[in-house]
């Protein structure tokens, strides 16, 4: 089985793939909740019952062809920094990271599948893909689920569907979500309107970092709330439609910003570049917000297109646990801020200053 250090050595493909026609969509994620028939749910099970459920699931999951050469650890055997790194990579939930013995994480080699054992449900399975690929992610995960059904008996009721610890996940047990980068909508003050519209059709929207409506790094997550009464395909189709509409709005907003106020855009991107390239102390809020603008610059042609991918991997690498893992020791918040700045400076060292030639090109076009 794979070691932790090997697992996290490289960013997964999906972490740096948010390019192409849906540049606003970083990743697509599918989660399925499953439970073992007649075994008490993890939150209610006694220690030995939880261990028994784990002993039943773990070998079956490790034996999956997709999990060959993958990572598998009981959470009690991981340090809190290691668990936090997995959280920052979206491979396990924060809730799961708080657990220890009796719970486990099994992660596919390339980090495209990750399975949480004895989370809130016995099994929370996840597939992640770059860009807008909810259908593909679901197809892959559903196949894995079907294979598991050969060896595990999942709790299922013909009327209520897959039975889950919390009734909010009943039915399909499906949570489909996408992470979106929406600086254009934020800068042009349209974000509130758009998110409200998304909310109105029963989808959940939240900032990826930060509380409430505030979102650091202009990153948002859109997901379904209802899991019962509609098929997986219906849920996913609606989400994909809405997400591509939001991505289109974002594209339009960016174009309009460049047209109406190119100087403001160039100024923001230029300042972000300056701060990230030359600061020595930077907290995660400031870093996220500037990286967001740098990423925008990459999409708009101020920097080379690869800059977008660079920003996506930096988003992960400047998180607190990643910094601690990188430096190999426990860090105070002050130390984190200076190591974060150091990492940003070195990774952006070869990034050329923004090419505002794009502005004059735009002008010529007009």
């Amino acid at each position, binding site marked *: 089985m794979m070691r932790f250090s090997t697992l996290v050595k490289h960013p997964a493909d999906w972490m740096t793939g948010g390019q192409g026609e849906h540049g606003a969509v970083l990743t697509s994620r599918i989660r399925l909740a499953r*439970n073992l*028939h*007649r*075994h*008490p*749910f993890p*939150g*209610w*099970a*006694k220690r030995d019952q939880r261990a028994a459920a784990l002993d039943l699931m773990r*070998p079956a999951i490790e034996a999956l062809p997709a999990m060959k050469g993958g990572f598998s650890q009981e959470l009690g055997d991981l340090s*809190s920094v290691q668990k936090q790194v997995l*959280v920052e990579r979206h491979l396990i*939930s*924060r*809730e799961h*990271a*708080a657990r220890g013995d009796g719970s486990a994480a099994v992660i596919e080699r390339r980090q495209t599948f990750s399975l949480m054992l004895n989370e*809130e449900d016995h099994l929370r399975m996840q597939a992640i893909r770059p860009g807008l690929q909810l259908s593909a992610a679901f197809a892959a995960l*559903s196949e894995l*689920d*079907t294979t*598991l*059904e*050969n*060896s595990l*008996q*999942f*709790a*299922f*009721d*013909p*009327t*209520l*569907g*897959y*039975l889950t*610890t*919390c*009734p*909010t996940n*009943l*039915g*399909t047990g*499906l949570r489909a979500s996408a992470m979106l980068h929406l600086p254009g909508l934020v800068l042009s003050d349209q974000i509130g309107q758009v998110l409200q519209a998304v909310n109105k059709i*029963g989808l959940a929207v*939240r*900032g990826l970092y*930060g*509380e*409430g409506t505030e979102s650091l790094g202009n990153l948002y997550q859109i997901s379904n709330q*209802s*899991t*019962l*009464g*509609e*098929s*997986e*395909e*219906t849920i996913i189709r609606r989400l994909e439609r809405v997400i591509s509409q939001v991505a289109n709005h974002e594209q339009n907003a960016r174009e309009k910003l460049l047209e109406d106020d190119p100087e403001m855009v160039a100024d923001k991107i230029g300042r972000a570049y300056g701060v990230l390239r030359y600061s020595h102390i930077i907290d995660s809020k400031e870093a996220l917000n500037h990286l967001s603008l740098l990423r925008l610059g990459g999409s708009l042609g101020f920097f080379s297109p690869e800059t977008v991918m660079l920003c996506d991997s930096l988003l992960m690498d400047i998180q607190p646990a990643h910094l601690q893992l990188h430096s190999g020791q426990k860090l105070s918040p002050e130390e984190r801020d200076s190591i974060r700045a150091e990492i940003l400076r070195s990774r952006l060292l070869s990034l050329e200053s923004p090419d505002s030639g794009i502005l004059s090109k735009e002008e010529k076009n007009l």
Partner: protein
Amino acid sequence: MKCDFCDQKATVFLTQLVEGQMKKVCLCEACAKERGVTDPTGFSLADVLLGGLPGGAGSITMSSSAVAPGNGKKCDTCGFTLDDLRRVRRFGCSDCYATFSEEVNQMIRGMHKGVSHVGKVPEGLMALQFRNQRIEELRSRLEQAISSESYEEAAGIRDEIRNLDEVKG
């Protein structure tokens, strides 16, 4: 102000409506992190409040020996009671959905787009049940074969069981 969990200075303050009541928790940075409070998604104040706050209502994972004082409805499979359900708004095991079917119907009304499942049905479920049944059958035949000393037949049955078990594993 001090953290509710330890004596450190509290820097994280949370207020949330839990079943119509305002609840407040104060935490230091370490405890907040440990409890996943800094993540707005994976966290519900109810869990912090119920899960081991001094003087709190007790952890979700304990009190399986509790007996329901009310109408005494209790899941035969896992011992989960109606009171437990009212407290945590979650269930104890898959059989609880049958035990508390009335409550389930009330809870899910308006929660989802519908009240009955549309979508994937485990195909494996059928196959697995069929196979387990078949193994049971073979086992009793094996016993018969052994007691009637037809060892050749017994060996054949044993191999068949082994094959089925392998597919299962």
